């Protein structure tokens, strides 16, 4: 039987998370279909049909779904669930919002943040902030799971799936009021190859400018620790950690971050970790490949300059 992947998109474009979730679906093995639920989401559906390994794209395009509310999107998935053995979504805030509702309506347990597919019914997922890896075998008739996208490589764009439109429309009692998105011209945290992150040691929001200069030079995304977010230096969608974004770039540069368990949970699978901190006892040095004990206000400008 087939595998259904719930697409991550903002109506206008498909997110890379979808291509990574398709990779997890391919690891399970089977016919992969992508479901795009939204409003005026034709462009997202067009991108989805080119994903390698996808045989069918199902589009549900209606005004009721413009905000992709869990309350009604879950029912769209439920309507077609009988055709699928596996239902996957990226572990994004949308996937995490919608999929548990789908699982409960199907009366099956969900497996969250899968990082490895062992077989069609057995998966590996981190627990306790990534301090343990649990191998879980599902006994449910349908496997509903969210995928930790940083653990999978995106599939390419060599596909040509058929596109099928469904005309569901289900009103939700939830109303969308407003949205306030953070403007950034830098790469997204989830897909960046290089990430430069600042913590409490940055001292203020203004000081993040020196971090941004380094990020610009490296073409990097900018992240932050919880301390930096709570202090109001940067918006919370920049938080890397157990409860923020989970990232695994090629290079992660942690500046003025002590390295609490909760922060490490979000970045310790990065390929190369660099820590710049003036406290030689900071726990971040225990996971860093390269550590530099230095005052960040001296080291950062110097590093930015030497990279030119």
């Amino acid at each position: 039987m087939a595998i259904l992947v719930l697409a991550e998109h903002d109506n206008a474009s498909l997110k890379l998370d979808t291509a990574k979730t398709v990779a997890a679906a391919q690891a399970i093995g089977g016919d992969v279909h992508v479901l795009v639920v939204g409003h005026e989401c034709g462009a997202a559906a067009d991108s989805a049909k080119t994903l390698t390994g996808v045989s069918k794209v199902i589009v549900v395009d209606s005004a009721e779904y413009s905000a992709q509310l869990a309350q009604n999107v879950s029912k769209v998935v439920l309507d077609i669930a009988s055709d699928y053995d596996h239902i996957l979504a990226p572990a994004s805030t949308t996937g995490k919002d919608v999929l548990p509702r789908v699982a409960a309506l199907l009366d099956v347990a969900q497996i969250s943040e899968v990082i490895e597919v062992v077989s069609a019914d057995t998966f590996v997922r981190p627990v306790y902030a990534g301090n343990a890896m649990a191998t879980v075998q599902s006994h449910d008739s349908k496997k509903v799971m969210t995928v930790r996208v940083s653990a999978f490589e995106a599939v390419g764009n060599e596909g040509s799936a058929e596109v099928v439109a469904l005309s569901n429309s289900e009103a939700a009692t939830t109303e969308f009021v407003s949205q306030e998105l953070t403007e950034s011209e830098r790469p997204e945290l989830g897909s960046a190859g290089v990430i430069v992150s600042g913590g409490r040691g940055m001292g203020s929001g203004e000081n993040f400018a020196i971090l941004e200069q380094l990020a610009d030079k490296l073409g990097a995304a900018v992240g932050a620790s919880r301390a930096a977010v709570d202090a109001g230096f940067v918006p919370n969608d920049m938080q890397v950690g157990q409860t923020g974004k989970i990232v695994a770039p090629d290079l992660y540069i942690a500046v003025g971050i002590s390295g609490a368990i909760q922060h490490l949970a979000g970045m310790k699978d990065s390929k190369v970790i660099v820590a710049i901190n003036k406290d030689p006892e900071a726990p971040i040095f225990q996971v860093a490949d390269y550590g530099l004990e230095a005052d960040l206000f001296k080291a950062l400008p110097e590093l930015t300059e030497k990279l030119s």
Partner: protein
Amino acid sequence: MKVLVPVKRVVDANVKVRVNADNTKVDTANLKMAINPFCEIAVEEAVRLKEAGVVSEVVVVSIGPKVVQEQMRTAMALGADRGIQVDTDKELVPLSLAKILKSIQAQENADIVLFGKQSIDGDNNQTGQMFAALTDMPQATFASEVKIEDGKAVVTREVDGGLQTLAMPLPAVITTDLRLNEPRYAKLPDIMKAKRKPLEVMSIDDLGIELKEHQTVLKVTPPAAREAGIMVSSVDELVEKLQNEAKVI
């Protein structure tokens, strides 16, 4: 208006856990336990709604063995009015927890059910959403601001690109994110008073629900250890290593 707050007893957030020797589970014996940080934020928000005069009663519920009463007493010291413990020794998946909570809601008829967004042990982030599905309630997950206006919940949520605000009729499910509030500390007189607040104990059998076995944990292993890194002495050396050794820039 009544608020129901499910709370979970977990290993304290600052404790680094270890996997046991036979790779079957995380060794939690003799570790410091605490109320799950997100549940604590949920209790705080419920108490603030009560202090604002929006809510008249805050009920906490916890599912687990008798020791969970410690965390329920903590919640009561923070301001919850009474507690319900559903006694069980089993480790239950979120769907089973949601089913138990559904039957508690059937008798409590709470207007708002405030969950933490995830427990820091299982890291599932499912129970609130599943409860909302089973009870057919609207949900606002990852809340960073909650207002109750004209019989509606207006909730700002932390989403991937920023913030999103939703409005929904009551009863509704709200799950808390870190930024919702700063939980207070329990004062000694409140801790003493909490000991006398009503705490009802019931079993899963009392609730008349049957739970399924959904999954088996085959093994639990420690994460792959990273190779020990090196300390560099200067920015020059760092740049040199990144360019020539790690080849990442």
